[in-house]
């Protein structure tokens, strides 16, 4: 048995993700599963003949006691945020009717592109969208397509993309990776797609090119984060 001082220590263990399907319990619970009497049975002369019975006993004891550590609800995902630049100003300039029409167009464009690039709409965030992709290439292509399409109708959209582990809460994603993607979108220039170094390096060889946008500090996120703009 491998012992850990705390459950968190076990989760840090390099082999944790290979072993999570197996049995994890508090030492106290293991103590009751592997009782002294269970082991003393091995001294009985007919132990081997009765082994199948003991296995069943053991299986039942495990089933009764086991409180498996739930699999970590974390997945590696590419998170994309889109945002309409200066939406208040653009709404004022467009007027209510035109603005509503542009918003409908924006929603249609985003959802069409998400479908095309196999993205999943996680939620709408005011004038923006949060979406998730299996990989950064499709996320970057999707964000670029959205920005380009909206620029064609006179609406400037910006996007941020980061690839990292996210916590899964129902259909929603959360965690630092999500915050980083959101902050990248905030930092992007009009019609720009800004990606993290993680996302950039993950698409090496995809023929997507980037311009260095320097290091950024993001509110609520520790450290400095290099950002890269997707080149046209």
């Amino acid at each position, binding site marked *: 048995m491998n012992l850990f001082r705390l459950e968190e220590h076990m989760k840090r263990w390099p082999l944790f993700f290979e*072993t999570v399907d197996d049995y994890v319990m508090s*030492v106290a619970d293991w103590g009751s599963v592997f009782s002294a009497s269970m082991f003393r049975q091995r001294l009985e002369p007919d132990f081997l003949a009765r082994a199948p019975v003991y296995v069943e006993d053991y299986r039942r004891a495990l089933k009764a006691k086991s409180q498996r550590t739930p699999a970590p609800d974390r997945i590696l995902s590419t998170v994309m945020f889109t945002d309409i630049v200066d939406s208040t100003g653009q709404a004022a300039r467009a007027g209510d009717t035109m603005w509503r029409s542009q918003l409908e167009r924006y929603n249609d464009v985003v959802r069409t592109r998400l479908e095309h690039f196999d993205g999943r709409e996680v939620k709408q965030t005011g004038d923006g969208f949060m979406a998730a992709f299996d990989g950064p290439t499709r996320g970057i292509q999707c964000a670029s397509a959205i920005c380009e399409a909206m620029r064609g109708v006179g609406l400037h959209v910006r996007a941020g993309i980061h690839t990292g582990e996210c916590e899964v809460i129902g259909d929603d994603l959360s965690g630092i990776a999500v915050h980083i993607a959101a902050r990248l979108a905030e930092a992007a220039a009009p019609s720009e797609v800004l990606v993290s170094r993680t996302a950039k390096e993950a698409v090496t060889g995809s023929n997507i090119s980037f311009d260095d946008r320097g290091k950024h500090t993001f509110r609520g996120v520790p450290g400095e984060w290099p950002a890269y703009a997707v080149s046209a």
Partner: protein
Amino acid sequence: MEVLAVRWLFPGQEVSVESRCLDCGERIRIRMRDEDILEIDPPDAVGYMPSPFTGSRMGSGAFN
């Protein structure tokens, strides 16, 4: 498993085992007597064991 199994070899006697956390290397101490676990330090210590009923991991189970 052996950390908990050792107690049946010493009926009626207190058995103390000191081990190390596989992650941080800090001490884990377990005191037992027969069926009773007298002390676990730290109390939140957990144990992981591959399932003896998982075919792909046969050879690492409780009955080896």
